[in-house]
């Protein structure tokens, strides 16, 4: 009777085996209005301390600029947030409940952190529209992709993003025909298609003309509020034009934090960075 009992146990239809249940990541919890916590982070490469007791808090919907001289740890910080690098010690939390240090790159992208790299990499052969369609958050397995059709809802999302990045008129042009600035915007648009809660933007205006820079400033300011945006940038004019809060990094930790005006008057900041 015993094997039969086991068999019965296995064939019960009111139960699902533990291992068959896909673990769901906890929802992004913003009860304290802070979207990103970095606490006591340390990371060294061959003895060089890239990140040194870094503490940083980003509020939900905030637009934060991070500046600092070369080697201040800006890129390493981004790498830790997106899961590319693991810190030696410290904590990194996305909202109240998501521990970034326990997730890998695709998982972090999935829960809503999007990163734009410095060099724009759009699919040149395809139209702007197709670029956005590909980047959309969707079921990316073989069969669903084959049967996929652009639903009205998805089309609306694409139109909305096209509007935001200002490429509505160029939607059917191949991406190869876009200017450098437009490619950067398209790339930001591709990030937006994944509906991220937090956007990490690495040097968005490098190589842009003045008009393009203004347009980018406008774009990033619109995004803040709906998304939280962290911008790492070298161009001081640009930072001045968009920043509400600026964080100055120096030797792997936060040197000062405040409005751009406060930063410009801070003697320590002047010494390490602005004065140069």
């Amino acid at each position: 009777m015993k094997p039969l009992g086991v068999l019965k146990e296995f064939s019960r239809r009111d139960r699902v085996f533990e291992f068959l249940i896909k673990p769901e990541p906890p929802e992004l919890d913003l009860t304290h209005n802070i979207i990103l916590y970095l606490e006591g982070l340390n990371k060294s490469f061959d003895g060089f301390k890239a990140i040194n007791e870094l503490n940083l808090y980003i509020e939900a919907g905030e637009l934060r600029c991070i500046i600092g001289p070369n080697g201040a740890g800006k890129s390493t910080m981004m790498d830790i947030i997106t899961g590319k690098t693991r810190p030696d010690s410290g904590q990194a939390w996305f909202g109240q409940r998501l521990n970034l240090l326990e997730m890998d790159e695709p998982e972090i992208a999935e829960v809503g952190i999007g990163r734009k790299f410095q060099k724009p990499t759009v699919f040149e052969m395809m139209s702007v529209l197709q670029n956005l369609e590909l980047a959309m958050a969707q079921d990316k397995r073989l069969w669903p992709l084959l049967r996929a059709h652009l639903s009205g809802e998805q089309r609306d999302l694409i139109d909305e993003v096209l509007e935001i990045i200002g490429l509505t008129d160029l939607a059917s042009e191949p991406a190869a025909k876009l200017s450098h600035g437009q490619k950067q915007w398209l790339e930001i648009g591709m990030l937006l298609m994944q509906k991220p809660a937090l956007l990490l933007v690495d040097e968005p205006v490098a190589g842009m003309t003045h008009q393009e820079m203004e347009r980018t400033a406008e774009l990033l300011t619109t995004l803040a509020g709906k998304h939280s945006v962290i911008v790492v940038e070298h161009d001081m004019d640009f930072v001045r034009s968009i920043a509400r809060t600026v964080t100055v990094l120096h030797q792997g930790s936060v040197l000062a934090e405040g409005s751009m005006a406060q930063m410009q008057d801070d003697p320590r900041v002047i010494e390490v960075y602005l004065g140069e």
Partner: protein
Amino acid sequence: MIRMSFLKNDKPGRWFLGILLVVSVIVPVANLLVPQSSVFHLSTYTVTLLGKYLSYALLALSVDLVWGYLGILSLGHGAFFALGGYVMGMYLMRQIGDRGVYGDPVLPDFMVFLDWSELPWFWYGFDQFWFAALMIILVPGVLAFVFGYLAFRSRVTGVYLSIITQAMTYALMLAFFRNEMGFGGNNGLTDFKDILGFSLREDSTRIVLFLASVMALAIGYVLSRYIVSSRLGLACVAIRDAESRSRFIGYRVEHIKLGIFVFSAALAGIAGALYVPQVGIINPGEFSPLNSIELVIWVAIGGRGTLYGAVIGALLVNYSKTYFTAALPDVWLYALGAMFVLVTLYLPKGIVGLKNLRAAKEGASA
């Protein structure tokens, strides 16, 4: 079910399907109804030759799908073609029954010749057409799946992948040359009599085989076009142009490559299975790496990444091959080489690129 709207945006494709339809009406009429004395009569030899070209065209189509849209330069697609051909050959061998030279009711002639007393296990079931038909898709498909799974998972790409596909077909060729393999050694499988009970020598059987090739090419084209115009096709092109970037947006590059590769191998297998009854023989020479390289040249000459370009290339090169090897046999290889060099130098997009080239010139001068 499947929406046919993807054909609306494919004008050359509709032309191509239209031409296939016309050919499928004209050829049987010209062969069976027009009297032999008339200039419009088409000999059975020509019909068979056309059928052979069409199965090559399907093979070229399958290569274009992986090369033109996914950037996988397979130099071993001839292996899938040959495997499909061997499966069909095994069925045709079993159909001979006791009409072979040695008159054994079960064993094919070459097994009797080798003093084998019973049928090897892997020849079981091939007396049934449905089983053979299943295997035509399964055998190349499974090989492509295993090979692709290992290669794509280890992220082998580019030249390295081309080289191992080449090695695969070469290894298969050496294996099939051995008598012990049980596939007829270097003589291969031949001396076929019937297919589904119809004599292969009958004109009507030849016509039906020709029509089957037309059908297979048309269906293969429509399915391939459906794939490349879906979002999956878009993802394929994304992978072709920027593989790591597609990974970064969340596409499972290995799965997509594997899926398309297996589908392409199955198409190649079907092409091989249509080729064998029309040509009347399959031997290990079909696995030769040279064949696989030549078929990549067909696609390059026709124009890759368009599907119909591959078909045009296959038909054109094979027609010239028939012409040259009959009229000027010594010149053929030089002609093929010259064609390839000229196309690479002056028509990087192949023959179908000519149209766009002219349009671009007109646009520039206007």
